[in-house]
């Protein structure tokens, strides 16, 4: 019995070391309610001015600070060649959530194009993770309208939960019937018939969120976290899980989503870095 307990403790320790997480932060990070309320006190980023036809990209899991580097240089070349107006980053922008990594992330990403970020679990892996995120990027929960027909909704699932305040806000913001709505966050709701552990944890929370998306006819729910490309449609809502931008953490099909907006119509394709 004692050896079994020791074995479990050793495995947990290895997981923490392997993920380079701060043990204290694992239990004492600022919770989602606090983060969301603080996000609401901050100004949302300004919308990028666009024409009638434009393209934008979506990716996640950059993990700046991870030694092996990523695909950002390839992405920058695509931005230049395809004329991508802006991009959205779905969390895990940094590897350890340190101030130095946030500074580096801001410099690297801002040099490519205007961008809209939200937060991931790795961004909270240091004691100052949330404070540094706010100071570097602003809120993690916000909505912006691009042009006249497109609404981008970003929300915080950094620890795999939504929380009461954010649910209430989502109900309000999704009720808009005049725009095409895209939702961006870090955690998937659904990741296939043989699920990994890397999706929203609570069953009723998943049901409530899925129901909100279906009822409000959301065009797509875009997320990351599992470092692999997945696509499912659940009762009219597309669930798009983009791959990672980190070479070291790639578990299949690195790349980004490229959305094309042309007047009232919207379409997307997955651009792979397996070239």
């Amino acid at each position: 019995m004692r050896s079994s307990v020791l074995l479990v403790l050793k495995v947990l320790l290895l997981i923490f070391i392997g993920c380079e997480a701060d043990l204290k932060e694992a239990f004492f990070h600022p919770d989602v309610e606090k983060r969301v309320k603080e996000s609401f006190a901050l100004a949302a980023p300004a919308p990028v001015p666009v024409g009638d036809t434009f393209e934008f990209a979506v990716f996640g899991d950059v993990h700046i600070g991870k030694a092996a580097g990523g695909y950002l240089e390839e992405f920058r070349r695509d931005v230049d060649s395809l004329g991508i107006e802006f991009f959205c980053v779905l969390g895990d922008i940094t590897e350890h959530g340190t101030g130095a990594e946030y500074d580096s992330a801001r410099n690297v990403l801002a040099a490519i194009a205007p961008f809209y970020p939200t937060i991931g679990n790795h961004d909270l892996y240091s004691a100052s993770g949330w404070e540094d995120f706010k100071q570097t990027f602003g809120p993690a929960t916000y909505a912006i309208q691009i042009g006249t027909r497109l609404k981008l909704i970003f929300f915080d699932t950094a620890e795999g939960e939504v929380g009461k305040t954010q649910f209430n806000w989502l109900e309000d913001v999704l009720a808009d019937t005049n725009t095409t709505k895209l939702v961006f966050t870090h955690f998937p709701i659904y990741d296939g018939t043989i699920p990994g552990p890397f999706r929203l944890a609570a069953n009723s929370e998943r049901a409530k969120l899925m129901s909100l998306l279906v009822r409000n006819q959301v065009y797509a729910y875009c997320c990351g976290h599992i470092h692999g490309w997945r696509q499912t449609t659940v009762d009219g809502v597309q669930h798009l899980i983009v791959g990672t931008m980190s070479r070291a953490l790639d578990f299949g099909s690195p790349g980004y989503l490229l959305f094309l907006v042309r007047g009232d119509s919207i379409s997307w394709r997955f651009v792979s870095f397996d070239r």
Partner: protein
Amino acid sequence: MRLMLIFGFLALAEAVPVIPDIGLGYRIEPGVEEKGAVAGGIKIRFKNNAAVDAGVYGNIGDNFGLGGYALKGEFGCASVPWLNLHLGVQHQEWRDWRCGENRAFFLLHLTGLKRFEVGMGVAWRQGVFDRARFREPWVFTGPAGEWNILYRLEGLVLETARGELGLFLSNISRHQIHNPQMFPFGVRAGYQVVPHWRLAATCQSTVKGFSALLFSPGEFEIELGVRYEK
């Protein structure tokens, strides 16, 4: 519901040993739902550890109305008395959100261990988000179905002539199946107040956050009920 009525008539006729139960509960999952529950059920025991268990519950508060129902068969084998096979189905619905979930499962249950019960199994869970069909209990195909590993570990820490107290770590109960990355744990107690009447109480919470390595408490649930056992 029809099965419950049939079981009720069987109990009245004393044709088979029937154990009815009724209880009240309270569940809070911060940010998701907060509700009271009224639950009832019936268990019929047969020979060789075989049994049928059926239950139904309603919500008071969020998602007011019918909450779900479940039916489970337990099958023993005379030559392997320490092993039971549980086969069951569960239906859960969230009326305010207009969605539901149907589950079918099997669980291999070791019963011969002193003071311990251990079970392992697999469930298929099918979310139903079609507003016209979310109340249908027989929908088991669709775009949001998934497999779910089941585990049940329960240990008795105190046992007297009239009562017992146990601890459990289990993601399956009569009406619920939790995702594998949530860890429901709790205390279960029973006490015989008068002959044939037994009080039963369960207090349960969950830890979530395994997939983010940022842990937080999940839901909190308490149930208090009474069971008639002849």
